[in-house]
């Protein structure tokens, strides 16, 4: 394909590469950066990566802010809540429909406020005299317009500074309007990245939404919540259909294709499955403490991974019928997956990939590439913590710094009414049979020896990486897309999917294989060099008079 890459694979020595990379930085910065860059050894369990630490000022990062994680990621995909961003206009505008999370209200009459971007649009005088009054009015606006079930308020940086008490305002309006209104102190500076915002969002949804509705009957015989799946490009839709076919009822997804309404009774389930561990493990853990609901990690990216995850869910319930339906589904779907894999794999096998994205995708997508015989030679997360790299066993050793202290740890106690001892027993029985719960091994044990693991990669670092390693494909986001493509390497966006998808489940695997064929086998990169660059300009003879 790319003519430049024809004669590889000369793979540079990773230690030397790391050294060269760090040379560019001032000494102090280099020392700090060195800890976030590892040459992997999957067998070495003592390897420690520095993650979830502040990006050094002036280094151009992929990361967004706490507010982006809270409003954009966690609350963004939920359709029946009006989100009001309290602050100047930009923060709200930039988060307006910019993630491709899809939603499907059951009827056209059901509420969907996702297309709206509400902002208090703070002006000079509000900054000087405070914005609480304006916020109250904005909440009233939202109520007058939509009569929504609930309203959420998000505080941005300047608000934290001027000290508006958004929670007091929310309480007041909640009492007045009689709907659920809750606020998030998710000012951008609060944390290292989006990750802090996930935690803040998890806390509030847990304390103010989950389990407040005790009136509904159980949703089905085998009921689960799916966590950390955001329905980018329709991923959740694909998975929803599998659960239905298996005979498993999906109560709520946090938060793809979701409603606040479904969260209110989401405590009444038998199991929480966790897709993106980084963004949602807090809720899963708190729900287990409060309600006794066990959780385990799943992965629906990659056909084999999907099959494995679905099987585990069926096994958890241990119901013959569910298991039989699940096996039938898997067998049928794998058949179609295989047909496409057989076509695509020979074309792309042996190529190399890099991915720097998110807090779980950089790990999950390695599965898909592996299925095509493509090796991931370098990977890293944008906003993950050490446990997402090294596995949950390191959680007790993670240093608490000033930034993590900013975020409240909720005190969770057993719920007297809704706690289910039966689930605790079920979990114990399964555990005795080596069924794993609360498990996440992280990315590093699954990556090959000498691959590079780089946390919070900077713009400049990715440029050097590309130059030296010349991967065949690079996965990241829109901010990196054109940098990488200017280097003659195709970039696949794993935040927005480049307008494609779904990539989850079996249908997702098929879509992704086809997408890889398109991207890796295109001729466009061959056209980069104009013909006159290498050949004499004039062919043929010049006739002189």
């Amino acid at each position, binding site marked *: 394909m790319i003519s430049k890459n024809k004669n590889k694979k000369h793979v540079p020595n990773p230690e030397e590469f790391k050294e060269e990379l760090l040379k560019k930085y001032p000494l102090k910065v280099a020392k700090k950066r060195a800890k976030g860059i590892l040459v992997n050894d999957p067998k070495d369990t003592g390897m420690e990566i520095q993650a979830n630490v502040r990006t050094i000022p002036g280094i151009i990062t992929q990361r967004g802010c706490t507010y982006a994680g809270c409003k954009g990621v966690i609350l963004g995909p939920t359709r029946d809540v009006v989100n009001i961003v309290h602050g100047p206009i*930009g923060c709200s505008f930039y988060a307006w429909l910019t993630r491709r999370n899809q939603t499907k209200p059951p009827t056209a009459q059901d509420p969907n406020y996702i297309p709206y971007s509400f902002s208090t649009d703070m002006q*000079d005088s509000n*900054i000087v005299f405070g914005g609480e009054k304006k916020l109250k009015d904005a909440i009233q606006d939202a109520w007058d317009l939509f009569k929504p079930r609930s309203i959420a308020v998000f505080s941005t940086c300047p608000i934290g500074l001027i000290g508006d008490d958004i929670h007091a305002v929310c309480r007041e309006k909640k009492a007045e309007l009689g709907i659920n209104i809750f606020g998030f102190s998710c000012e951008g*500076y609060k944390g290292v990245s989006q990750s802090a915002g996930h935690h803040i969002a998890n806390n509030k949804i847990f304390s103010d939404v989950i389990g407040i509705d005790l009136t509904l009957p159980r949703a089905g015989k085998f009921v689960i919540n799916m966590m950390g799946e955001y329905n980018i490009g329709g991923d959740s839709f694909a998975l929803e259909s599998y659960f239905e076919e298996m005979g498993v009822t999906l109560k709520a997804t946090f938060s793809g294709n979701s409603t606040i309404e479904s969260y209110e009774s989401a405590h009444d389930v038998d199991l929480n499955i966790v897709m993106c561990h980084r963004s949602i493990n807090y809720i899963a853990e708190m729900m287990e403490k409060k309600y006794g609901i066990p959780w385990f990690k799943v992965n629906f990216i990659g056909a084999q991974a999907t099959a494995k995850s679905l099987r585990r869910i069926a096994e958890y319930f241990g119901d013959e019928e569910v298991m039989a339906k699940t096996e039938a589904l898997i067998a049928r779907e794998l058949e179609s997956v295989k047909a496409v894999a057989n076509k695509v794999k020979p074309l792309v096998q042996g190529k190399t990939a890099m991915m720097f994205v998110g807090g779980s995708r950089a790990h999950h997508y390695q599965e898909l590439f592996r299925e095509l015989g493509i090796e991931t030679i370098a990977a890293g997360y944008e906003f993950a913590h050490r446990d997402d790299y090294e596995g949950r066993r390191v959680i007790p050793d993670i240093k608490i710094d000033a930034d993590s202290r900013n975020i409240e740890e909720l005190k969770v106690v057993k719920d007297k009414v809704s706690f289910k001892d039966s689930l605790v027993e079920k979990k114990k029985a399964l555990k005795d049979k080596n069924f794993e719960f609360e498990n996440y091994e992280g990315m590093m044990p699954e990556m090959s020896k000498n691959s590079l693991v780089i946390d919070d990669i900077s713009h400049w670092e990715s440029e050097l990486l590309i130059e030296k390693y010349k991967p065949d494909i690079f996965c990241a986001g829109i901010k990196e897309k054109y940098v990488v493509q200017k280097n003659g390497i195709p970039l696949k966006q794993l935040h927005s999917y480049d307008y494609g998808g779904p990539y989850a489940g079996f249908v997702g695997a098929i879509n992704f294989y086809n997408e890889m064929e398109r991207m890796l086998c295109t001729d466009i990169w061959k056209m980069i060099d104009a013909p006159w660059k290498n050949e004499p300009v004039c062919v043929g003879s010049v006739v002189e008079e």
Partner: protein
Amino acid sequence: MDAKVINKTPFVSTRNACKMCAPLGSSLAFKGVEGCTPLIHGSQGCSTYVRRYLISHFKEPVDIASSNFTQEATIFGGGTNLKLALDNVKSQYKPKIIGISTTCLSETIGDDVSSILMDYREIPGNENTAYVHAQTPSYQGSHADGFHEAIAALVKQFARRGEANGKTVLLGGLMSPADLRYLKEVMQAMQMPFVLLPDYSETMDNPHWDEYKLIPEGGTTMEEMEEMGNARAFIQFGEVLNKGRLAGRVSGSHHVVSAGDILQKEFSVTGYHIPFPIGIDNSDLFFDALKNISGKELPAEIAKERGRLIDAYVDGHKYIFGKKAMVYGEEDFVIALTGFLTEIGIDPVIIATGGESKLFEQRIREKTGTENSIVLSGGDFEQMAEYARQIGLDLIVGHSKGYYIARELGIPMVRVGFPVHDREGGQRLLHLGYRGSNQLFDTIVNAVIQQKQDNSPVGYKYM
């Protein structure tokens, strides 16, 4: 679900804003300076969001650094962070200039950026880079204000007095790279020496490179900016510029001057203040100014372009006459567009901007000559939608954010300006001059024809 239709809009909140924030504008302007790396002084999210937004329109690498405030910086001030950020930007990018924009946060804290920079310059090794600062709190103005604030800051810092150089300065507005390339082409065709500020015609619309460039080539050079002080004349496009906040609901806390004000008052350069050259009238003003400044006749090719545009107007008039349109965007852009739409026989019934200048409505009324159209200053898309549902529209002319209204009403939409992130080629849209107006005209006419054709029971293919 739809918002209710309401006759008046008593709402306090902004619902689906029609403006972006100031550091986006200033950073875009800084991208138009050669060897410049923009830096946003505040928390990292602002910089990330601004980059993301610019990238989704321009589809180019856009490196903007951040000083990355922590909670402590928020309490004790961001000076240390800013200095560290400057150190690191310099070591990675080796920029000639660093263009610093302050965010709502650093402005609210009250960081004294000029004195921080003064200290910073004193440190040996730091004197070879220039540092420019635009004050851009978004609670005082939109992205358009930010854009012009940056240009003013550049002129203020670099323009020098010296020997007359006979150059003409073009002070650009929020235009596309294609527009900027067009302006340069016109100046070359007129054989007029010129300085264009800002010039992101290359940096935001790069060709594919053989070798990756940390800072893309192109942009107004420092020497050119110095020369502006001795120019023969300047042309400033638009008149709201960064004065939106002065004429807005809240008066600015500091005195706002535009780049043109500085050249005129401090350097006595003759100024021409003209609207964006969109449409015949507006373009005539531009070419007239060029003629005046240079004393030269228009090249035949440009005169022909004018002639072709008139010809096109005549041909296409029957399709669009009397069509009701909604138009929105930045103030100066919309003022010019409204003139153009009126000129071609379209009736702009809803004219909106998120900016807050009082000049806006005044100019719009002058252009349309009617009190009947709805003019929204400080407007948002929900207000527009409410009116649109009541009035009934044939066409929407504006950027991508209004698409949902076109979709709801089932009417065609012509994408112009910024941001266009649901089509390819936003960066290559040409709006200016006779040529750009002609392209715009054809696009509008064809959008109307297509609507008619698609909905026709017969399916005429000979229109």
